[in-house]
């Protein structure tokens, strides 16, 4: 019997085992994440809105291959929106590699009050790199549905109304999949633990 096929099989198995071990070492399992791990990774939301410069912004296309943070909020938000954005900006200060390869996208759920100028000025307080998006109420609702979060609801009347909205930051790895979400209360230590892991999740 020709020993060559058997040798080839053995070599293939050994190589497979080595590569498998290497992959495991380089990319830790998403189960180790500190965020709320999704049972099934979510595909990146597909929608197009308008950025603060007035240009159309195809979310899926513009953020392709990047670690992407998607957050639905509004600039008059009294509590969680500014804290989430401040946390991200502060974490990026400690993770320059992550910052270089990330895009933070803030979608307003209050297009009535959040003009492009208002959004830009709000985001600039955290980072001028953060992307701000707006659109018609229908477009924004569609974007929320595409991202799998419940549409925001206006609460109260008058000028000082508030808006009930999804409080979690959706994070998509460079491979285009969302493995975990980050609710309000996520500590900087959690972000710093998870982001390098997610950044390694590149499209094969």
């Amino acid at each position, binding site marked *: 019997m020709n020993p060559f096929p058997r040798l080839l099989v053995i070599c293939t198995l050994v190589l497979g085992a080595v590569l498998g071990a290497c992959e495991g070492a380089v990319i830790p399992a998403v189960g180790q994440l500190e965020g709320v791990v999704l049972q099934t990774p979510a595909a990146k939301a597909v929608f197009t809105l308008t950025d603060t410069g007035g240009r159309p912004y195809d979310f899926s296309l513009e953020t392709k291959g990047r670690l992407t943070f998607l957050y639905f909020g509004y600039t008059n938000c*009294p509590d969680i929106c*500014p804290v989430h954005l*401040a*946390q991200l900006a502060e974490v990026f200060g400690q993770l320059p590699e992550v910052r270089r390869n990330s895009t933070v996208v803030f979608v307003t759920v209050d297009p009535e009050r959040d003009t492009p100028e208002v959004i830009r000025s709000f985001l600039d307080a955290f980072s001028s790199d953060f992307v701000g998006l707006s659109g018609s109420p229908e477009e924004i609702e569609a974007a929320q549905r595409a991202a799998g979060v419940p549409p925001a609801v206006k609460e109260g009347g008058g000028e000082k109304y508030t808006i009930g909205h999804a409080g979690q930051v959706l994070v998509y790895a460079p491979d285009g999949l969302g493995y975990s979400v980050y609710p309000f*209360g996520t*500590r900087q230590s959690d972000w710093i633990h998870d982001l390098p892991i997610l950044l390694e999740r590149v499209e094969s």
Partner: protein
Amino acid sequence: MNISWWCTALSEPWSWTFRAYPGVWLVVAALAGGYAVAVRSNRDVEGLSLRETGFFIAGLLVFWVASDWPLGTLGAGYLASAHMVQYVLYVLVAAPLLWLGTPEWLARRVLASTGVYRAGRSLRRFPLLMGAIFNVTLILSHTPIAVDTLRPTQFGSFAMDALWLLSGLALWAPIVGSITEFTQRSYPARMLYLFFTTGVVTILPASFLTFASLPLYRTYELAPRVFGLTAINDQQIAGLIMKLSAVPIIWPVLAGMMYRWATSERASA
């Protein structure tokens, strides 16, 4: 108007809108009222100097400023640095002033009624115990679990403030306490006590705060940012306040003691 019993962590953005804390006013009024009643009822027996009254009022005012809006609000839920300013005011300013303003007969009466006097008398190494109480309180009350558990509730926040003031009174009892049996007699012993109790253990939590790469307290990390300070910068400032607060407060006291010691030595020579 926003009213609550005691300052506590809030989720809304910081604003300069006044908040009322009747609990703080009640405690200040109770301390002032109790002092006035005690002094009035003992006027015939023993006198009270204007200096003592002044010290007590100053101590009470410092306690009030540290506990009430705006510093109390900022310290309870927005800024670790404000929390540390509160701590310094309670422990290093209000506590010694309150001691200096309390005449011996009043201190004896208060301590006897609470059983503290008997416990203190039975202890041979009273200053060591006071130093230990101060430092254990310092360490424990600045652990993340203590801050993040106590600050979000009014009662917890009140308990933390009360604990700080009491630990401050314990710290200063051997130095400026009114009860002679509990005070250190010699100036060198006083100076050593003050230097070691306030200058050694403090370095540990202060260094943690100053050099940590991440925010330690959930309460301040997840609070709306104030004055453009990042959570980590705020924490570093808190650490520096803890570490450096001894410089303008403890060192002048040590210098004063040194001067008095030298004067008394010269006089006795």
